[in-house]
Every structure is written in C-alpha cells, then in structure tokens.
C-alpha cells in the first residue's frame, strides 16, 4: 500500500525562481532563505519518495476567471510550465502519475469532495519553484519524483475555509493510503506566509501571526480552523490566504507529526517565507 512519509512547506515566490536561475544562493539577501533547504534535500535523498503531491494555488496561468475551480487535481501524464508574462525562465515538463491521480479523484469524490479533474494543466511558479527548491536540477536530479499538482482557488473570493482545507487534506490522505501500490508519497503545501501585494496596505507582513501558524500547524491544526477567511486576510494579508495550501497538506499527514526542521525569514520579495519539514508518526 502507498505510504505518506511526510509533508514539506515552502513559500513559492517568483523571485526565488529568478534567484535559482541566477544562482544567488550565497548572496547576503538570499542565504538565510536558501540555507533552509539542504537538510530537507538530505531527508528526501534518504527516503526517496516516488510521488510528490504538490498543493499550490494557480496565479493566472492554468486558470482564468472564466472558469475558476475551487479545488483542481491534475490527472495528466505530464505537466508543462509556460510563460507567465514577466520573465521567469521556463522549466522543462514534469512527469505525472495519472493512475494515482484518478485513484485520488475517485476516492475524494466518493468522500463528497467535488473535484475538477485536469488532463491538461499548465503549472506556474507556485508549483515549479518548490520543485526546484526540493529537487535541484529537476529532471537531471535522479531523485525527482513524479508529481501531481493540486490547485486551490485563492485568486477570487469566496475562497475555501480553513476547515474545508484541512478536511480536504484528510480526505486526500485517506485516498493516498488506500492506493494499492507500494509507493512512498510526500505532500507539499506551498505558498505564504503573510504577504500583501495589492492596495494601500501593500507590504503587510505579520511575523507574530506567521509564527503562531507554524507552531499550531504542528501541534493543533484544528485550532487554526477557527480563523475565518476574513480574519486570515486581515492578519496574513490578501495573498497570505495561501496558508490554505499548508492546511491541505497538514490534513493529509494524519493526527501526529514530528517537526524535523523549520525556518522563517523576512523578507523574501514582499513575503514572510516559511519552510517546514514534517514527518508522519505511524
């Protein structure tokens, strides 16, 4: 049977993609951010997951406002990165695992989650930057797993509630664990933490709130479901709603996790950048 070995979180800021392309790892601005990743890569090299479920939010590449799915799951053999308009270098396609995708979709719809399945889905920086951070070299990295993108809507309100995000994760975890093949799966929750790009409040970052979220997501994610979406915007900023991806990831990991490693750094671009490595407790 499939096994979830753990979950990883990271911010997925486009500027990180540019910094990777330009190899700025040791620059003073970037070093406190990139230094968070070697311990995670060591853990990944040791455990070698076969599949990464990459939970992110599309930012206007794969979806537009004409058709905006609340929860979309990739069901393709391959996912292509495309031009996002502002100069981030394109990266090669990512191999998928369509068989596992359809198993997850079947199981989650059985559990009454209404899923949009995507046999084609252009993946943006929200998906590609975490893959580059965790598996440098991407396709040239022998340990890069097959990937399944899951995108939740944070572009347009109403966005999912924090409770729905956590419950989605629980159903996702159940779906993965019921897959008959003996594979190892890692779940990525990407985006956040606090940031706001738009309006007179642009540049809003909330360290205290971010650190509270990083603590509670390990020990008591249920408590975080008490935060309303309105309160999430107020505390974490308009785009801090990406914390929903972390909640989805956390739900998939089960009741108990060990936090093996974490980092929090302000600022990367306009964002409080949070990185966590959580291991499932059997």
């Amino acid at each position: 049977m499939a096994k979830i070995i753990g979950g990883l979180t990271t911010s997925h800021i486009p500027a990180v993609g540019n910094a990777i392309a330009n190899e700025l790892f040791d620059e003073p601005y970037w070093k406190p951010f990139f230094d968070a990743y070697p311990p995670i890569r060591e853990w990944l090299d040791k455990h070698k997951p076969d599949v990464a479920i990459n939970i992110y939010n599309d930012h206007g590449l794969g979806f537009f406002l004409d058709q905006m799915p609340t929860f979309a799951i990739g069901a393709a053999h391959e996912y292509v990165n495309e031009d996002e308009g502002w100069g981030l270098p394109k990266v090669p396609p990512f191999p998928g695992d369509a068989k596992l995708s359809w198993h997850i979709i079947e199981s989650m719809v059985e559990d009454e989650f209404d899923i949009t399945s995507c046999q084609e889905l252009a993946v943006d920086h929200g998906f590609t930057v975490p893959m580059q951070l965790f598996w440098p070299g991407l396709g040239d990295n022998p340990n890069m797993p097959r990937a399944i993108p899951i995108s939740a809507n944070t572009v347009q309100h109403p966005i999912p509630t924090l409770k729905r995000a956590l419950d989605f994760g629980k159903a996702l975890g159940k779906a993965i664990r019921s897959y008959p093949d003996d594979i190892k799966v890692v779940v990525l929750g990407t985006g956040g933490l606090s940031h706001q790009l738009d309006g007179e409040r642009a540049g809003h970052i909330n360290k205290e709130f971010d650190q509270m979220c990083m603590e509670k997501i390990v020990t008591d994610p249920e408590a975080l479901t008490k935060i309303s979406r309105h309160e999430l915007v107020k505390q974490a900023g308009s785009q801090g709603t990406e914390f929903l991806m972390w909640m989805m990831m956390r739900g998939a990991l089960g009741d108990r996790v060990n936090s093996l490693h974490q980092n929090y750094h302000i600022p990367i671009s306009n964002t409080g950048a949070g990185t966590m490595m959580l291991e499932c407790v059997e």
Partner: protein
Amino acid sequence: MELSDFDHHAPIEGTTLFDGEMAMKGYALNKMCYSFNKAEAREAYLADPESYFDRFGLNEEQKQACRNKNVLEMIAAGGNIYYLAKFAGIYKLNMQDIGAQQTGMSVDAFKEKLLRAGD
C-alpha cells in the same frame, strides 16, 4: 497571539477583497492582462495599446488606469493583482516597484519597510 482575540467583521484598511462583485467589474481588464502570458500578446499591446484595450472591451475607467500605469486605479476598476502583475511585467515593474507606487513611498523606502517587518 490568542485565536480568541480575532475580530471577524471589521473592514480591512487598505485592502480590497477581490470577490464576485469585483470579478464582474474587472472582467475585461483582467482578461486583457491574462492574455499577456503570451509574448505575441505583449508585443501586440505595445504596438497599439488603445486598439488592444478595445479588443478586450475595457471601459474608460480601466483604459485611463492602464494609461496612467496606476495600480490603485486598476484595482478600483476591478483589477486583480495576479493579472495586473502581468501588465506590470510589460513595463519591467516588480512587486517592490508596485508596492512603492501603491503606498506612495520610494522603492528604497518600501524595501526598508519590508526588511523592518522582520525586526
């Protein structure tokens, strides 16, 4: 920080929630900006912005906000920041440039504000 401290109803200063109402208001503007994912669309826009506005049916408020390259005006006209970022990219404006413009700060002062958030 205690979760019970949260006020779930107060308006959020300096923030426009992009909801259904704004999504309808800004649809043409956002659709134009979404087209800028493609290089040929960016070239077509730069060659003749006014006819590009008309191709997507922008209203006068949206056109003027674009002519002014004014992000707050574009948001008021229904723009969503993720699509507006593609418009800004045409003019090589990054998120710190946009942040400075919206907050009325210099770019250096805006970057300093971000750094200070970590104190």
